[in-house]
């Protein structure tokens, strides 16, 4: 009897161990992917930055790949402006939507709004771009002239694209605020709206900030939708109606044509983008840690 039990036991231990290893392998795939991608991008791109020169590359205003002149300042600024614009639209709308869903909307309305927001997240980005090209660009052209392909068009599209990220994460954060906070505030005689803005949102601050940062990440990284509406002109945009080219658009548009140093420089553009995204993630970690300390 005892020997059989031991056998069984050993067998069980073995399967446990194997399954644990399978979990480990699954988990390491993400880590390995990140490492390989980082290594690859830096190995391919970093030498090009050395050849072009850090200053010429990051602060150069001319992009003439056929003449080996590679300055990406116009694209850095375009990415920056487009992202800031998208945040200015997406964050207020997103947070208000989240508050509405978590605090105000009756259940039947929640059942319409929430799936709609989720569907928004599922629409492929090229469809957003196509919509922008066929609807938003002509409207801007009609109202302001200049063709319509502009920073403004990109900002509109990106503003809508980051909504689902901001809404879902902010809503979770708002719902995580302890009930007692709200009850206490209401018991002191404040109105529901006052409670939302003075108690609930401040308490959910770190989660909402995380939502905003993830939204920024999405806006910076978006490529296809932006290419279709922004006009892709390499110039420092001076107004919302100017055409521009973002970092991601630059890589996507020229990769098919690139050759030699030009191709390496596009990888270097990827390095810059990568550093941006990494810094954002560090920022995000910082905020979420703070949330834990609270």
């Amino acid at each position, binding site marked *: 009897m005892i020997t059989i039990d031991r056998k069984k036991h050993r067998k069980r231990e073995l399967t446990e161990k194997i399954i644990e290893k399978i979990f480990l392998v699954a988990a390491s795939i993400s880590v390995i992917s990140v490492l390989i991608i980082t290594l690859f991008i830096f190995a391919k791109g970093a030498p090009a930055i050395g050849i072009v020169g850090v200053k010429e590359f990051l602060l150069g205003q001319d*992009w*003439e*790949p*056929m*003449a*080996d*002149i590679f300055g990406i300042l116009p694209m850095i600024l375009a990415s920056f402006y487009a992202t800031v614009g998208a945040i200015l639209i997406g964050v207020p709308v997103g947070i208000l939507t989240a508050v509405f869903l978590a605090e105000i909307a009756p259940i039947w309305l929640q*059942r*319409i709004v*929430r*799936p*709609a927001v*989720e*569907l928004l997240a599922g629409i492929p980005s090229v469809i957003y771009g196509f919509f922008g090209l*066929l609807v938003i660009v*002509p409207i801007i*052209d009609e109202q302001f*002239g*200049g*063709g*319509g*392909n502009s920073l403004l068009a990109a900002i509109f599209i990106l503003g809508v694209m980051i909504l689902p990220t901001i809404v879902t994460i902010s809503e979770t954060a708002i719902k995580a605020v302890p009930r007692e906070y709200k009850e206490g505030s209401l018991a002191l005689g404040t109105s529901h709206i006052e409670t939302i803005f003075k108690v609930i949102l401040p308490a959910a601050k770190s989660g909402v900030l995380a939502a905003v940062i993830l939204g920024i990440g999405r806006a910076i990284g978006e490529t296809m939708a932006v*290419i279709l509406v922004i*006009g*892709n*002109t*390499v*110039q420092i945009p001076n107004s919302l109606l*100017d*055409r521009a*080219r973002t970092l991601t658009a630059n890589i996507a*548009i*020229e990769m*098919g*044509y*690139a*050759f*030699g140093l*030009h191709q390496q420089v596009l990888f270097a553009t990827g390095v810059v983008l990568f550093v941006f995204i990494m810094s954002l993630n560090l920022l995000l970690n910082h905020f979420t840690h703070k949330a834990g300390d609270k």
Partner: protein
Amino acid sequence: MSKLLKSKIVVLGLVAVLSLGVLAGCSSPAAEEKETSTETAPAVEVVEEGQATTLEGHVNVVGSTSVTPVAQEIAEAFMAKEPGVKVDVQGVGSSAGVKAASDGSADIGMASRNLKEGEKEWGLTEHVLAFDGIAVVVNPANGVGELTADQATAIFKGEITNWKDVGGADQEILVISREAGSGTRGAFEELLDLEAENAEGKTISAVKKDALVAEGNGAVKANVAKKEYAIGYLSLSYVDETVKGVSIDGVAPSVDAIVAGEYNVSRPFLLLTKGELSPAAQAYMDFAFSEEGQAIVAEKLIPVQ
């Protein structure tokens, strides 16, 4: 849970209905652009060597978006004759085509410009399939139908910025160009003297810096077709009724004008191969340069024979 699912389906349905409405509202005539091009196929003599054996295989033709339409039409006529062969034509740009032919990821590469110095060292064989015109195009609603070459150059350089200076309406000109590295852009800049030298003596583009950049011939055409005061340039084979080809120095862009040597904005279309081809790919090449293939080429381009 099921309630949530239900409401999701309801919203999905709503979205579908709405978008159907939109689609119905703006149905475009683009679908009819393809004319039956194979009508000119008189049962040409069965392929030499009299081998009635059916070829089988798969041919990848990759490269310039300018060469793609004609390569596709040749492929369709070819596949009608050789049902066992599947030909895939992909337009991804001249440089990508050169690279694909060189590293073997494509059987045949397509380029709409001459090979660059670096590319010439890769041991590719160049076959000039045709010569192509580049048409300067405007919106059909634009009153301007003729420019001198100097005017066209000045417009693309940004020296002329209003249509009224070339006999049109008092409207700002929206210049549409192509991405750096595009074969069409390279050839166009060369032909219309749109190249400049910078301080270091390197050749740079003289096209105005704030030109809208559209990715590919199709995107240029779509932009010009939609924007009334736009001007762009296209491979002649892409010109159709949605845009208007502008006469340059009094000559309208057409195959006849190029053959006659009157329309000078033209460049070669190359098919690129490396080493020994598969029988199917070789058959495609033979077909492209046969009388029949060149007849297809002649519809919009200048055949080499």
